[in-house]
Structures are given as structure tokens and as C-alpha cells.
């Protein structure tokens, strides 16, 4: 979509077309229904999302023309865990009439973060100053090399302290005045154990796995407090993956921004005085 405030007619027309498209295309049942449909109809070469031959997997996640929801290949998690992760973010921000985390492919955002150090330049901080969507060069795609301490910070976040000597200062129990004890677990371990537990609980309830559960049941499980998954952590990541810049994965085709009627990044054009201060100029139709 041409999300350009300076080209009013084109922008407005595209907005309306896209909005209509969402209403027609997005299924209320969300990601899992789409997966089930794809599996059942044999639209893909294998079970979603990981059994497509490697040679056929593009670097950039692609949309599956045979379903209503984009399909993504995991880069970090196992296919089974990625399926559970996709079902998890879908449950947290469901596609319930408007696009949510599944349409935004927020699972790709999370998976990319967990595997940030697999890239030559870790994919933690996108570059600047512009995305290129509104003019100027795309600087976002050139990720910023980490400093020594930034790399340590993000290795601790993702991998945990794990007994590594230079990370011990960040253990939970340093100081002895806090409730938590032991090594600080990283995002990766928390997701792996949490997703496995979600699958196990789903199996205990008679489902094939967590992704097999209806979205309402998945939400109920997450709300029950019975799951070991750090739901708050996952939710914040789902929000980031739905409404953050697409350079990090997630927010596929700006679907998260469109869903909430938000223009996203605006540099280098910004907003005119009229767009800032005049209520008649507010909203995409008025631009």
C-alpha cells in the first residue's frame, strides 16, 4: 500500500482497497484455522511450518497464496516449537475480525530475535535514519554492529547467564535481597520450555498440540495460570512483532499499523502543520 501522506488520492484509494481486502480476507478463526486448512488440503509440501525442503525456503518469509495467513519458516526454533509460537502469538493478539499477530507474522519477529546472533551483524538494532518508505535511502535494513557491552547485554537476554563467568553479575540472586534465585534464564530457554509445556498441556486436554486448540481454549489456558510460559514476556514480544517496524520480521506488509490506523515511521517527510494541528486534516482520508 502506498502509505504516503503527500499523495492524497493514491493513498486514500489504496487505503480503501486494502481495508476492504482485510474485511474479506481475514478469517475470524485466525492462524491455526489457516494452518489446518493448508495441511488438510495439501497446499504445502509438508506439515507447517518447517518441512518444506530447505532449497525451496526463501530467506525472507513469504505469503502462502493458498491460505489467508502468511506462512513463515523458522530460523531458530524447531518447526514444532515455531508452530506452537505461532499459535501463541495468535492467541495473545487474535485475528478476530481485524488482523492480529498471526497476520503480522509476529512469530517471525520473535524467532528472528531469538536467532539474532546467527547473523554477521546481530539483528538487534536496525540502522537509521530512514526506512525508505517515505523517501531517502533504506537505512533500517543495515543493522548496527553491537558494542562489546551491548553484545553482552543481548547475549544475556537471549541466552541467559548460563554459568558464563562474564555474565555472572546479572544472575538473579546477586545481592541476596531479591526474591528470585539462580542463573538468569534467557528468552530462548524460556520460550523452548514454555512452548513445550503448552504443547504438553494441549495433549493432556486431548488435542494434537497447542496449535490444534481453538483460539478460545488457547486463551483460556494462558489466562488460567496453569502454563509455565511467561505470558507477559510473550505478549510484549507479540506487540512488538505486530506493531513494530517490519525490518525486524513481523508487521508483515504493515498489517499491524493498518489495523490500528497508524502511519508508522514518517521520516523524512514527517507531518505538515495542517496534519498536526487541524482536526479537519486528521485521519488518512483527510490527508
Amino acid at each position, binding site marked *: 500500500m502506498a502509505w504516503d501522506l503527500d499523495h492524497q488520492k493514491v493513498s486514500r484509494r489504496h487505503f480503501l482497497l486494502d481495508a476492504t481486502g482485510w474485511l474479506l480476507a481475514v478469517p475470524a478463526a485466525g492462524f491455526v484455522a489457516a494452518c489446518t486448512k493448508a495441511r488438510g488440503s495439501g497446499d504445502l509440501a509438508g506439515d507447517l511450518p518447517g518441512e518444506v525442503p530447505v532449497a525451496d525456503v526463501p530467506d525472507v518469509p513469504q505469503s502462502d497464496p493458498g491460505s489467508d495467513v502468511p506462512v513463515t519458516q523458522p530460523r531458530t526454533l524447531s518447526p514444532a516449537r515455531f508452530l506452537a509460537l505461532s499459535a501463541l502469538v495468535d492467541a*495473545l*493478539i*487474535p485475528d*478476530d475480525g*481485524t488482523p*492480529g499477530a498471526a497476520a503480522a507474522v509476529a512469530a517471525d519477529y520473535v524467532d528472528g530475535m531469538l536467532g539474532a546472533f546467527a547473523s554477521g551483524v546481530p539483528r538487534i*538494532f*536496525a*540502522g*537509521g*535514519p*530512514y*526506512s525508505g518508505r517515505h523517501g531517502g535511502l533504506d537505512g*533500517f535494513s543495515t543493522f*548496527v554492529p553491537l*558494542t*562489546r*557491552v*551491548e553484545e*553482552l*547485554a*543481548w547475549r*544475556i*537476554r537471549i541466552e541467559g547467564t548460563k554459568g558464563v563467568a562474564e555474565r555472572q*553479575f*546479572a544472575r538473579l540472586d*546477586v*545481592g541476596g*535481597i531479591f526474591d528470585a534465585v539462580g542463573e538468569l534464564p534467557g528468552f530462548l530457554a524460556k520460550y523452548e520450555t514454555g512452548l513445550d509445556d503448552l504443547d504438553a498441556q494441549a495433549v493432556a486436554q486431548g488435542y494434537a498440540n497447542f496449535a490444534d486448540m481453538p483460539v478460545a481454549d488457547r*486463551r483460556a489456558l494462558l489466562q488460567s495460570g496453569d502454563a509455565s510460559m511467561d*505470558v*507477559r514476556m510473550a*505478549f*510484549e514480544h507479540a*506487540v*512488538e512483532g*505486530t*506493531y*513494530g*517496524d517490519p525490518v*525486524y520480521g513481523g508487521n508483515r506488509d504493515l498489517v499491524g499499523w493498518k*489495523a*490500528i*490506523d*497508524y502511519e*508508522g*515511521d*514518517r*521520516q*523524512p517527510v*514527517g*507531518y*505538515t*502543520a495542517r496534519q*498536526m*494541528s*487541524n*482536526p479537519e486534516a*486528521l*485521519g488518512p482520508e483527510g490527508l
Partner: protein
Amino acid sequence: MATPDFDVVIIGSGPGGGVAAYVLSVLGGKKVALVEKGRNPYPTLGDPVLRGSLFGNDEIKRRRYFAFQDPVIEPRVFWDPKAQKYVKGEVQGLGVCVGGGSVQYDGNSPRLQRLDLTAKSSFGDVAGADVVDWPMDYDELVPYYDEVERLIGIQGQQGADPFAEPRGPYPMPAGYPSRADLIFVDAAKKLGYHPHPMPTAVNSVFYRGRPACVNCGFCDGGCALNAKGSTGVTCIRDALLHGNLTLMDQCCATQVLCEPSGGKATGVQLIDRDGAVQTVTASQVILAANAIETPRLMLESASSAHTKGLGNGSGLVGRYLMYHKDFSLIALFDSEIRSYRGRCITKAIADFTVKPAGAGADWLRGGYVELGGQIQPVAFGAEPDQPWFTHKDIMIPGIQRRFMSAICMIAEDMPVKANRVELDPDVKDVYGRPVPRITYNLHPRDKRMADFYAEKLRAIATEAGANTVMPPTPLDANQRYFDIESKHLLGTTRMGTDAATSVCDPWGRLHEVENVWVCDGGTWPTSAAFNPVLTQQALAYRTAAHMLKPGDETSVIPNDTNA
């Protein structure tokens, strides 16, 4: 004795350190080392033509602590008054990068009022607090205000604030206001208040080689255009081009080194970007790391001559921590606001800083009021108070983006001796340094003040037509009394004439160490009722001018305003 490496070494490149670096190296011709713990986010800084920035309209990068204090590697321990215990985590984080706290701030740059420097003589003693007058007169600050406003680039409207001290024109005209702020203007006027453009360190026009702001709304992530006048893209850039400044980014100072007698510093020890310990010697040392990090470094610099910490014979280093008591409300409207379009704050009122005619004996001085406020969607959606299971009910209608604005008061808080920064005995940061342990509780006067003004702020929002004001009346006591959102770090190395009751002299020099100076908010004896950065910069200019020409400080200010 060996010649020192530098004439001056400055710890911290934020508002104070950046200005001091400019004055000493450009105007004073001194060989200056500027030690900055964080990265340089301006890849072409020092190039005469290019003006690069690694910042962008990118919420994720901001949430991942880019160029900011990261609590995983630099946690703090602080007193939680609600939980009644110390906790470890994120509190009062500021920019950790070249430019420091001037990078991600809103840019709000009001001057103080004369009253702010005379809290004791104007309003009297307050039990349980050590209220004092500043050891200088407001008029002394004026030439430094004028020059710093020109250097940094401040927009505003002369004469629009009837409570401001007399002044000349601003370097730049006020830019366009945002809808989030405008919506309160008529209501404030109707209630007898005096809304005016917020003086802001953001270009409204092309200024000194930097472009005008395009109002993208991402001020708090760092400016992509360099339209905001951080000290990085103003003073430090100018000083690098001049050639006398050595910028040592990614270098963390760990100790101020002294002669055995303790009367004179010889330099600083630091950990460089590769993790190696190095020593930088200098004839003068300036501490400008902020009012938490500077006392931390001073306490770490204890020696046989300074057993309680550098310059801490009085035992006051780290005490009298002030934040400002800010409290805010959120207002929802039926009409579109889209508060994310535009600079953070474009309108303000100062009516609550001056006693109105007819006010009773119970009147308390409040503070400067920011009209408006904004939040981007990831920050809002992931706010800790937002339950995940109702997320879309809030996000899809876009209440906070489309219909919400805010009002926030920046009010003076009391200098209380028990509010302090210490070194935590157990918790260390990534550099192996003991982290600051912060104890802060509101003084009863601060609570009375919050009670006094809560309904006045609410009345503005209601008059403006807000359909909902949060928190509801009465303001929830937890929010009103405990939530400290301000990052205005002040007071922990207070200046004064008496070495028994202050840490620095009236010029910012430590009473006990003749060549160590403080150029951050720590020197403030009282917190004043306005955003502090511009005054902090003016004070740093004044200190640096004194270092160059004691007794003739204002002669350091160039007459040629094109310099």
C-alpha cells in the same frame, strides 16, 4: 612531574559535559578529553558537511535500549515505597551515548524564574527538608542562558509567558503546535491561565547547519534529522571540528585519581571499549555524568585521603536527591487528536509557579505544566498495566493514538537529606562497578502540593471537553504520591558557600579538591519548578568560563554571535 595527557578531562557528554567541552576547547583553547560510557550514535560526527544519525522512527530499537541505559548490564537498586523494600531493575535511565540525556529528552528548555533560586527567602523553611537559597543571583545566569540558547538552538515566543523573567527574542520562532496541546489552550485561557509555546531545543527553521524539525513524533527515540539540539550535534560537533577535543566514546570512568594528599586530582581511570583499564591524566577534572552517576563515581573514588569518597568530608555526596514531583493525567476526547504527530510538548503554562492574587495561606508553589503528551503504539500496547486479554479492545479503536492527550506538572520537590544515592554493597554492573542504590521518598509537602494541584489540572481537561480523565477523581494516591516518571536528576552534590553543608562551591568546584568540578544537575541546591536542562547547560557554561577566566567569566562569551 610528567605533563598531563590533557588540560581537562570531562566525564559524561550530556547537557553539562557537552557544553563545558565546547567552552573549554573552542573558546578556551584547552586540550580536552570527553569520556562517554555509551556509543556514538552520530556516525559522521566531526565531519564538516555530513550529519548522520543512527536514530530513526523505530520503536523497537528504542525498546531495546539503543543508546540508552540498559538495565540488564547496568541495573540499579532502588527503594520501592509501595513494596517497602529495595528492588533491582530499571529506574531513572537516561541516554547512554554521545549527547547523553540531551539525546532522548523532549527538548523542553524553559529558563528558571528568579523565585527558583530563592526558595528559602521567598517561601521559608520547610520542616524535614533543608531548603536553601542558591549561592548566586538569577541575573548571573542570564548571559549564559542567552549564549546557550544560541548554541543549542531554542525555539520560543518572547513575551508569551507573563511569568517568565524579562528576556530578549529566542533564536528561533516557535514551531507549529500539535493538536494534543492545542486542545487545552482555549480551556486554559478560559480558566484564566496563560498558555504559551514551550521553549524547546528543536529547530523550527534551518539553524546553524541543522534542518528544521518535520514533526515526526519520535523525539524520545533520538532525532533522525538532528533537528533536536542534543549536545552531540551542537557543542560536541563544533568542538570536534575545532580540533581541540578528543572524544572517548565507549569508555567508562571508574575512578577519579588523586595525589596522595587528596587535595588535587591527577586524572581518571577508565575501562575502554575493548575492556582494558586505562588512565587518562589531566590538569582539571569535570564530573558531568548526571546526579546519580556522578556521586556514584565520587563514592567509588574513595582513597586514604578521601575515606568516605571523593570530596565527601561533609558526608553529603549523594544526599538531597531530587527528581521533581511530576504528576500527570490522561484525557480522552470525542474528536481526533493523533497526539503522535508532532513534537512531544508544544504548549505550557507557568501559572502555578507564582502565587496568584487573593490566594490563601495554604497556597503551595506548584510547577511548570506541560500541555499535551504522546505515546507510540508498541509502548502503549505493551505497557505493564495493559492486560493482554483485552489488548485488541483498546488497540483497534486507537483510543490512545487518536483521542488521547495529557497534562503533566513538573513541580518542585523538597531537598531531603535522607533521599540519597549510595553504592550497593552487592550488585555490580557489566564493568564490575557497584551499582547505585537509590532511596527516595516524597516529603509530606510534596504530597500536599500534589493534592493542591490535582483538581486544577483536571479542571483544564474537563473545560477542554474531555469525556474521560484518568486517573478518576480523586487522583489515586499511589499514582499521585509514588509514581516518579521524571528523569530530572538533581541535588546530590549541592553547591553552597559552606563546606559543612554543601559539596561544591558556588562555581561547581568540590570544596575539598581544588581541580574537580561538577557540571550536572547535582549542583542544584533546590529543584526549582521547571525542566532543568537549559539551566544545567547555562551553569556548565558558567563553570567552564570560571575555569578559564575567574573573576571575568562573562568575557569568555564571544561577542560574535556567528561563532
